[in-house]
C-alpha cells in the first residue's frame, strides 16, 4: 500500500511535471490552459495564415466525429493539439447544435480515454503513472485512484467512488458483485479504471463549451463553421420530425389512458412526459396531455414536468425510462415494430 502524508504528497506532486506530450494527449488539463495563457495567445491571432492548417484540422476533427461517429485518431505535437482543442471548442459552440456538442464532448472523452489507457499500461515510470492519475482523476474530478502495491497493473478505487460512476453502466459486469472488492476498495485494470471517468470527461468538455463567451468569430473560423452548420443541421432535424409522428406502443397506450380520463400510474406519467420532452415537445404541450387525469392540477403538473425537463430542482433533464424498466413496471406493450429496441425513444429509427 502506498501512503503519503498530505504535505509529503503535495511536495512530491510539485516536484515532477507533465511532459509536453501529455498536454498533446490531454489538452483539457489545467496545464494546457496555462500554456495558452503563458504564451499570451490572442483571439485575433486565429486569423493569422500559419494558424490556417490548425483551423482546417479542427474542422476535419469535428466532421469525422459527427458524420462518422468515430474519434479523430491523429496525434500532433502539443502546440498543434492544444490549439486544435481550443478551436474545436469555439467551432462547436458557434455551430450551436446541442447534439453536435454532446457528440463532440463524448468522442473527445473517448479519445483521451484511449491515450490514457495506453499510458497507464505502457508507462514503466511509476511516478509518472501516479502523476497522470493525480492530474486527471483527482485534480479534475476529485476521484482518488491508487496503484495496487502487489500488482502494478491494477488500480484501486474507493467502493463509494466506484458505485457513483459504475451505476451509469447497464452491463452486468459493472455490478459490484462481479468486481474484486476488499476492505472498501474495488480493484480494476487500466481499461476499467479509465472507463469510469468517460462521462465526467465528456461533461467537462461540454461545460467548457457551454461556459465560453466571445462577441464575434474570427473570419478564418467563421467560414468553416458555416460549412459545418449547413452540413449538420439537416442531420439532426430529420430525426426529430420522424419520431414525433410515430409513437411506440407504450406511449400510445399511455396517451389512450389519458385520453379517456383514466388514471395512469406515476411511472407511466414519468414515461409519457420524459418521452414527449425528449422528442421536442414544450413543457406547455406536455402538461396539457395530463389535463384529463382524474387528479389533474395545472400548477402541480407544470411543476413536475418542469422538473423532468431539467428546468427546476437538480437541473438534470430526466431520460426516458428503458424498455426493461417499463417491462418491470407493466408499462411495456411491445409489438413486432419494437424490434429489439432498448428504449422507447429508439422506436422506428432503424426503419
Amino acid at each position, binding site marked *: 500500500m502506498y501512503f503519503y502524508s498530505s504535505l509529503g504528497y503535495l511536495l512530491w506532486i510539485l516536484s515532477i511535471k507533465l511532459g509536453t506530450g501529455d498536454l498533446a494527449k490531454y489538452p483539457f488539463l489545467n496545464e494546457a490552459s496555462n500554456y495558452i495563457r503563458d504564451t499570451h495567445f490572442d483571439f485575433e491571432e486565429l486569423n493569422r495564415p500559419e494558424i490556417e492548417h490548425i483551423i482546417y484540422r479542427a474542422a476535419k476533427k469535428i466532421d469525422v466525429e459527427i458524420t462518422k461517429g468515430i474519434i479523430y485518431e491523429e496525434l500532433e505535437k502539443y502546440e498543434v493539439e492544444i490549439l486544435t482543442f481550443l478551436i474545436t471548442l469555439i467551432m462547436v459552440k458557434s455551430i450551436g447544435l446541442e447534439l453536435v456538442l454532446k457528440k463532440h464532448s463524448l468522442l473527445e472523452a473517448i479519445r483521451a480515454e484511449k491515450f490514457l489507457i495506453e499510458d497507464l499500461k505502457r508507462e514503466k515510470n511509476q511516478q509518472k503513472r501516479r502523476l497522470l492519475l493525480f492530474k486527471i482523476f483527482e485534480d479534475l474530478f476529485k476521484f482518488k485512484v491508487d496503484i495496487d502495491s502487489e*500488482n502494478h*497493473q*491494477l488500480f484501486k478505487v*474507493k*467502493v*463509494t467512488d466506484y*458505485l*457513483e460512476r*459504475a*451505476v451509469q453502466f447497464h452491463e*452486468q*459486469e459493472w*455490478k*459490484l*458483485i*462481479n*468486481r*474484486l*472488492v*476488499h*476492505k*472498501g*476498495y474495488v*480493484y*480494476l*485494470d487500466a481499461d476499467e479504471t479509465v472507463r469510469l471517468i468517460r462521462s465526467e470527461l465528456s461533461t467537462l468538455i461540454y461545460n467548457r463549451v457551454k461556459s465560453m463567451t466571445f462577441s464575434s468569430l474570427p473570419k478564418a473560423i467563421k467560414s468553416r463553421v458555416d460549412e459545418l452548420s449547413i452540413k449538420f443541421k439537416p442531420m439532426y432535424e430529420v430525426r426529430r420530425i420522424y419520431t414525433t409522428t410515430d409513437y411506440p406502443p407504450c406511449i400510445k397506450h399511455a396517451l389512450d389512458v389519458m385520453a379517456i380520463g383514466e388514471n395512469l400510474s406515476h411511472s407511466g406519467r414519468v414515461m409519457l412526459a420524459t418521452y414527449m420532452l425528449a422528442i421536442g415537445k414544450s413543457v406547455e404541450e406536455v402538461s396539457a396531455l395530463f389535463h384529463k387525469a382524474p387528479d389533474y392540477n395545472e400548477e402541480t403538473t407544470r*411543476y*413536475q414536468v418542469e*422538473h423532468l425537463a431539467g428546468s427546476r*430542482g437538480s437541473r438534470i433533464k430526466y431520460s426516458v425510462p428503458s424498455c426493461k424498466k417499463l417491462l418491470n413496471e407493466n408499462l411495456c406493450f411491445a409489438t413486432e415494430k419494437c424490434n429489439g429496441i432498448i428504449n422507447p425513444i429508439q422506436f422506428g429509427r432503424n426503419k
Partner: protein
Amino acid sequence: MINTNPTEKSLSIVKSAFREYYFKHSKNIEAPLRIEEREFGYMQFGSGMVRHIVFRNVGEILAVLVRDIPSDVYCSNAYYVFPSYPMQEKQWKGADLIFDIDSKDLCLSCEPTHSYFICINCGKISESKSEICLSCNTRRINRTSIPCNKCIHTLKKEVERLIDLLSGDLGIKEDAIQIYFSGNNGFHVHISDTEFHKLGSQARADIVGYLMGNSVMVESIGVRKGPEGFFIKFPKSGLAYGWRKRIACELGISQSSILKLSKMVQQKGGYDEFRTELIKTVRDLGVRIDPHVTIDIHRVFRMAGTLNSKSGLTKKRCHDLKSFDPLNDACLLGDKEIDMEIKARVKLRLKGQIFNLKKQNTRLPMYAAVYLICKGLASAN
C-alpha cells in the same frame, strides 16, 4: 401499528403504558445526528400519519411524545435543506445507509408454529394459515408472529453475516456500524460513515445486490462462453478477496485451478448449467435483507428509543449483539397487573418470565398485556 382493531379499553391501556414509558425513559430517546436537517413523522393511535415535521433538539421531540403519545415515531434517513417542505421541494442532501433484517424475510421453519392469522373484520384468530376467514368469509386477514428463541438466534446470526460483509468487503469500520433491535421482529443496521451518505438509490441497489448475492456472473471467477462451449480465463484482478474468494472457497478452487474448474463446469453439464447452479449457490450465501428499505433514500425509520406499536417493545441500540436479548432488554414497560382476556393459545417469554396462556381471563403485567394487545391476541377486561 397495532394488529386488528383493539377495544377502547385496550387502547387506553396501551396509551397509558406508552405515556408512562415516555415520562420515565426519556433518556432512551436517541437524538439523530444533524437533527435539524431531518424530517420527522409520527402515527397517532386511531388516526393517520403526521409527516414533514422538524425538531431542533431532543427536548422538542420529548414534548411531542408526552403531549400526543404517538403510537410510532419516525425520522428520515435523509438530510434535507428544507425538511418540513413537501417531498419534491425538500432538496435532498444525503441519507444514512440503513439495512433491515426482518424475520419475515428469513423464511424460518419455526415461523408457522408461532404465527397467528387474525380477521380484521370479525377478530377471529386462527393458528393455521388461511386466506379467508372461516367465521365471516372475508379476505382481510392480518398475520402476526411471536418470535421464539430460534428466530432471535437466526436474526442475530444474519446480522453478524451482514456486518462481516460490510466491514471485510466494503471497509466500513466497526465504530461506524450501529445495530438496533427494531422493536418487533428484526434488526436495523445503521451506517454512519459519511462516505456512503451521498449515494443515490441505484448505488444503494448495487450494494444490496452485492450483499444479497444477486446478479453474479460466472465470468467473474473465470468461466467464459466460447466457441466450444466454454473456456477458463481467470480475471486479471484474481480471486483473492470478496465474493470471488467466497465462491473459490465454496468450489475449492484457486487462481491455478484451471483444469479443476474446467472439469467442474463439464461435470455440471456446461456453461449454462454451471451458471444456473452458481447463481443459486451465491444467493444462498448472501445476506437476507429487505432490499426496499436500503434503496429508499427518502424513507422514514422508527426512531431509536421509541416504542413499536406492533409489540410495545423499544427500538433499542445493541452494543453487544451476542448478549443482547430483545425480549428482555427492549421490554421496558411497567409491570402493573391488568385484567385481560386472552384470545388464543400463546407461549411467550418477556422480561425473563415465561407465559403459557390459553384462551382465558387472567391478570398479566402491563408489558405482557400491551405486547398481546399490540399483537391482536388479547383484550383488556
